[in-house]
């Protein structure tokens, strides 16, 4: 079949390219490394990957590297995972959240301005969550006041991944106090180098500091930097979240599939390869991981054909997050006491490294960020199964 041949040819090309280009020894170099080394590795790897046209397979065909079929996208993700290449986490928000939001909701001028910058290596961050607005995102308070041709931003964002390195921020801010909180939100692109922006990294429980707080103090944003109309930021934010919940998981599910040998290696290293109970657990995990890949693939196919339905992305994310948790827990269980010795952490290696306590902790990125598992369950129950929403009004009862 022609399609199969062309996928086969692509596979050979990608594999050969990766063989020649994946930075040798990057895992060792990233173990307990300095931040500067991490940023340098990420920049170099992104430069190579995007120049080769493999960084943006999920983009439309008008853009370099884009227009790939599901089959071709899978080939690329599989080969990148197979070659154990670094994940582009410094560029994750730019490549997925920002690009998908611009493609879906941005103006032509905005796309022409920003997508080339992303391809050239701009780093973006997502400024949605606030100290008092997490799951209840619509209650956020960061203000954007219209003054002439600018919005003036005041407020605080938190848990913003890679914000300390970012050039630009996807900001969700309040432009009015509408009765329905969602109606008062506006979506802006903010230059992180503008006067009045302060970023403070937050130490995480792995020892890393992947996310940060952002403070906005009279930061001016030209009105051309608004995506969608004033007051329509909530709808735009849904495009961002949908890409985070569904699309990114095609790549990550295949990563998890290719990381399964870590469990096999751990069984061998722990001398428990013949353990029947563990084999049973491993078999069950493999079936779950395969199903995660099948779900993510199907999601992508539905998206391409315009058949995506409410809740589809939530199913993918919930299933991925719970499977990833099981993955790290099984590894931990096999590793035993030795797995609990602190071996530090590896920057940018994400959730499958065989350093089980860190992998386990990092699996919470997927059960908390981008809408927690509980929020995904709400969405599935309400939007897919048609179960009723919680009553809106709630008052503190007198004690």
């Amino acid at each position, binding site marked *: 079949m022609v399609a199969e041949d062309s996928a086969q040819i692509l596979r050979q090309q990608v594999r050969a390219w990766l063989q020649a280009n994946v930075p040798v020894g990057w895992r060792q170099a990233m173990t307990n490394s300095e931040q500067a080394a991490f940023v340098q590795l990420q920049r170099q790897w992104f430069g190579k990957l995007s120049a080769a046209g493999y960084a943006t397979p999920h983009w439309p065909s008008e853009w370099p590297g884009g227009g790939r079929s599901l089959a071709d996208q899978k080939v690329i993700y599989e080969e990148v995972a197979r070659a154990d290449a670094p994940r582009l986490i410094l560029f994750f928000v730019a490549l997925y959240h920002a690009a998908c939001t611009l493609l879906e909701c941005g103006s032509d001028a905005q796309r022409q301005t920003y997508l080339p910058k992303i391809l050239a290596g701009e780093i973006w961050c997502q400024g949605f969550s606030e100290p008092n607005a997490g799951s209840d995102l619509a209650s956020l308070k960061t203000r954007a006041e219209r003054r002439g041709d600018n919005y003036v931003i005041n407020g605080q964002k938190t848990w913003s991944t890679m914000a300390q390195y970012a050039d630009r921020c996807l900001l969700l801010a309040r432009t009015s106090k509408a009765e329905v909180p969602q109606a008062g939100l506006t979506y802006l692109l903010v230059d992180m180098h503008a006067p009045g922006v302060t970023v403070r990294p937050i130490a995480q429980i792995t020892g890393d500091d992947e996310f940060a707080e952002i403070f906005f103090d009279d930061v001016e944003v030209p009105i051309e930097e608004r995506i969608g109309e004033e007051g329509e930021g909530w709808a735009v934010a849904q495009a961002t979240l949908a890409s985070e919940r569904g699309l990114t998981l095609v790549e990550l599910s295949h990563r998890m599939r290719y990381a399964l040998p870590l469990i096999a290696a751990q069984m061998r290293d722990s001398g428990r390869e013949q353990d029947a109970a563990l084999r049973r657990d491993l078999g069950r995990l493999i*079936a779950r991981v395969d199903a995660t890949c099948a779900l993510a693939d199907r999601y992508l196919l539905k998206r391409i054909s315009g058949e995506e339905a409410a809740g589809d992305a939530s199913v993918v994310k919930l299933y991925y997050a719970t499977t990833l948790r099981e993955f790290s827990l099984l590894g931990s269980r096999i590793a035993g006491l030795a797995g609990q010795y602190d071996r530090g952490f590896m920057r940018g290696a994400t959730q499958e490294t065989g350093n089980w306590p860190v992998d386990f902790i990092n699996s919470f990125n997927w059960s908390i960020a981008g809408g927690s598992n509980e929020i995904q369950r709400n969405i599935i129950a309400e939007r897919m199964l048609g179960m009723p929403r919680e009553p809106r009004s709630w008052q503190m009862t007198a004690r």
Partner: protein
Amino acid sequence: MADDGALMIPHMNNDVRELQDSARRVLAGLGLAADEAASWPRIADLGWLMISTTEELGGLGMGLAGACALQVELGRQLATVPFLPAVLAIEALAHGALADKVQWLERLTAGEIYVAVPLADCALNVQRDSRGALLLTGTLLAVPSADNASHVLLSTLNGEHVGLVATAQPGVTVIERATWDTTRRLFDLQFDAVELEEHHIVASGSQAQALAMRLAVQRDFLLAADAVGGAAALLQMTVDYLQARTQFGRPLALFQALKHRCADLKAQTEAAEALLLDSLGREQMDSADGIASAELAGKAAKQLACAAFATVAEEALQLHGGIGMTSEHNCHLFLKRALLNEHLGRAPDSYETGIADAFLASCQPTCASIQTL
């Protein structure tokens, strides 16, 4: 409600989609766990037994994916008809070497005769007598609707033969084994030196082994399809019940503790369905390598789908409360079918260990070591 149409293979061939649509309507008309004797002629008339065979052999050419699409619908309605074993028998004959297979297939796909196939792993001892005749001894387990079968399709323990034996003959004892699942009727078939006649041998030697392997794979996929349909229908029924039932002055569906459980079940059902359809779209059993790869995919699909159905069934009974414990409510019919499904096919634990064994063997040479840290 929102679920309708969700069990279709996206971008699946339109003919299968249409057939599945119409099957859903027909089966809804017949009702849940509809009477076997009344439904069997209906499904034969509708041509469903022709679904998987190629057009050259007079079939509809929709393959295993087509048969699974129908089995999903049959699973939804807890169908009592032995469609699953009938399809396996038809597949065996279509891929076998009987001289008069075309005539057999005509009668089988028209529903004129029914050939049963055991749904558990079992085979018979075989010995040659002084005349050189092959004599079969032993017991076949979990043979559905065997009392209506003219013949049973069986394998010999030495792997040498797959063949047909008439069920109504001296030396064959047909014993009904009532199961808790009343939507299926299973039988033991005891054989005491019964001849496997030369002209009833469907495959021999390596071909018999390949055929037996193929049938086991198809059985796994069809059982997975049955479970996917059952799980989806039962989850829907449960959500509908929670919407309708009020306690504490509100519908139960408003309680988040229950919503979240339904959402988890939805995710598991969707995952099982996605894995089944993905594998069906990908696997091709036209070579030995193809069958080996399909075998693994079938094991994963069966394991995941049957586990999901069993979990949905367990939760459904809990979420129905007392009414679910009453015999007039349908909840228990799903539960008992889900429980039985987990025990049909290969031995339950062998799915998980089989998947792991193959994986461990395959990643031996290239296996990443735990990364240097």
